[in-house]
C-alpha cells in the first residue's frame, strides 16, 4: 500500500459509463435484481487503502484464504480537483479541476452491480493513480482516448466520446450529491469490458500525449 500524492480526500469512480456496455445491458437492466435501467450515474468509492502510484506492483487478490481465480483491470480518465466544487453547472464544471490523470481500477470481475462491491473493489493498492497533468495541457477532454495494454498487447481503447455521460455532466451531477474538495478525484468511466489479467502481468495505460500509468500484477 502506497500513499498517492494526487488523491487526498476521496476517489469516486463511475461504473456503467461505457455506452457500448450500457446498451448491451438493457435486457439485464430490465430484469431482477435491477428491474430498470439506472437513471443516475452509478458511483462507487475506492477507499484510501486502495490508493497507489505509477510503477507500483498490485497485489493479487486473496479471497477466502486462497488466491483469487481471476482479476480484471480497467483504466479511466480522471479529474483532480484543486478547489472546492459544490453544486456547479455543466458549464462551470471544469473550473474547479486542476489536473487530469489516469486511474487503474484492479478488482475481482464485475459479476453484479446490485450491491456495493466491497470484496471486489476495496483490495489494498488496487487503485494506482498517475501523476496529474495540468488542465491547460488539454484543450478538450472529450476528444481524448484511453488505451490499455496488457503485456504490450492492446486490450481496450476507450474514446471519452463513447461515454454515456460527459466529464462535465458527471462533475455537475456528483457536485450536487457531495461537495468535492481539493485533492478529490473522479474516475469518469472505464471500458465496460474489463481486461482479464494474470499474475505477473504488466498493465500500461496511456492517453496519447497526456499521461500514462504502468503497473505490474503481483504473484500470490
Amino acid at each position, binding site marked *: 500500500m502506497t500513499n498517492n500524492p494526487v488523491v487526498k480526500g476521496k476517489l469516486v469512480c463511475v461504473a456503467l459509463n461505457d455506452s457500448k456496455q450500457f446498451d448491451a445491458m438493457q435486457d439485464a437492466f430490465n430484469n431482477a435484481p435491477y428491474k430498470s435501467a439506472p437513471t*443516475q450515474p*452509478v458511483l462507487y*468509492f475506492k477507499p484510501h*487503502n486502495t490508493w497507489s502510484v505509477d510503477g507500483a506492483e498490485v497485489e493479487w487478490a486473496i479471497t477466502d484464504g486462497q488466491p483469487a481465480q481471476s482479476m480484471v483491470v480497467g483504466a479511466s480518465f480522471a479529474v483532480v480537483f484543486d478547489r472546492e466544487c459544490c453544486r456547479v453547472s455543466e458549464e462551470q464544471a471544469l473550473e474547479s479541476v486542476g489536473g487530469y490523470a489516469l486511474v487503474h481500477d484492479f478488482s475481482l470481475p464485475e459479476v453484479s452491480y446490485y450491491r*456495493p462491491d466491497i470484496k471486489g473493489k476495496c483490495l489494498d493498492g488496487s487503485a494506482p493513480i498517475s501523476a496529474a497533468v495540468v488542465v491547460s495541457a488539454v484543450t478538450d477532454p472529450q476528444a481524448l482516448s484511453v488505451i490499455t495494454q496488457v503485456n504490450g498487447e492492446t486490450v481496450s481503447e476507450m474514446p471519452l466520446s463513447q461515454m454515456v455521460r460527459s466529464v462535465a455532466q458527471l462533475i455537475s451531477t456528483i457536485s450536487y*450529491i457531495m461537495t468535492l474538495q481539493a485533492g478529490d478525484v473522479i474516475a469518469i468511466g472505464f471500458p465496460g469490458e474489463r481486461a482479464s489479467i494474470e499474475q505477473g502481468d504488466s498493465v500500461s495505460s496511456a492517453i496519447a500525449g497526456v499521461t500514462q500509468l504502468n503497473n505490474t500484477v503481483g504473484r500470490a
Partner: protein
Amino acid sequence: MKHARVLFKGLELDVTVEESFATTGLLKSKSDGQLIDQAEVTWLSPVKDPGTIFALGLNYADHARELAFEPPKEPLVFLKGANTLTGHKQNAYRPDNIKFQHYECELVAVIGKEGKNISRENAMDHIAGYTLCNDFAIRDYLENYYRPNLRVKSRDSLLPMGPWIIDKDDVGDISNLRVTTHVNGELTQDGNTADIIFDVPFLVEYLSKIMTLKPGDMIATGTPEGLKDMQPGDKVVCEIEKIGALETHIVSEREFYADKY
C-alpha cells in the same frame, strides 16, 4: 475518557469531556488544559482524520423484518465519503422535492490500530473506542445499482457523528446497549444492540480479510427498526446507552447551502 473535537473562538481544538459534564458542560483542551463551556463551542465530528467510513445495511434483525428483507447471510457493507460528516448539534439538510428521508441511529466502532486478516479473537485490540452516528437516508433516491447508492447515502451533512469518542474500556460490553431516537421529543426508535446480526468483532474480521483497516476508519453498525420521515425544523436526537446522545437539526436544502444554493 471521552474525546471530542470542537471549534472554539475560531480554533479547532482536541478536548476531553470532564466527568462533571452532565451538570457543568465543561470540556478540557488537550493542548493547554483550559476548561471550556460547551455552550461556547461548535462540535465537530470526533474523528480527526477520517479514513474509510463503512456502514452496514440491514444489520438488525428487527429492522430487516421492518423493511421486509430476509436477514442477510453476509454483511451488506457500503462506504460513505467524509463530506457526509458533521458534528453534534449541527444542521443536516432535507433535499428539495423528496418524500422520505429517515434517520438511522447507529453505534460506530473507531479503528485505532492498523491490521489485515485480523481474527475475531483479536478484533477488539484494533478498536480505539466508540461513537454514534445518524446515518440519514433519502429513500426516494434508491436505485438497484450498488444499493444503497451514493446519492442516497453520501450526501453532505447527512452523517452527523459524535458528540465524542469514548474509550473502548470505558464502555465494556457493547452487545446489550439501548439504541433510541427522539424526534421533537417523541420516542420514534427504540432498539438494542443485542439485535445486531453481524457484531463488531465479526465485521473487523470480515473487512480486514478484504482490506487493511487503519486508524481513523469507522464502522457504523446499522440501525434497529423505527423509521420516520424528517422535515426541516425537526430536532432529532440519537442516543446509545453508555455512549452518548447526538442532536441534529434538520434544515431545508436552501437554508443549508445558503449562497451556494
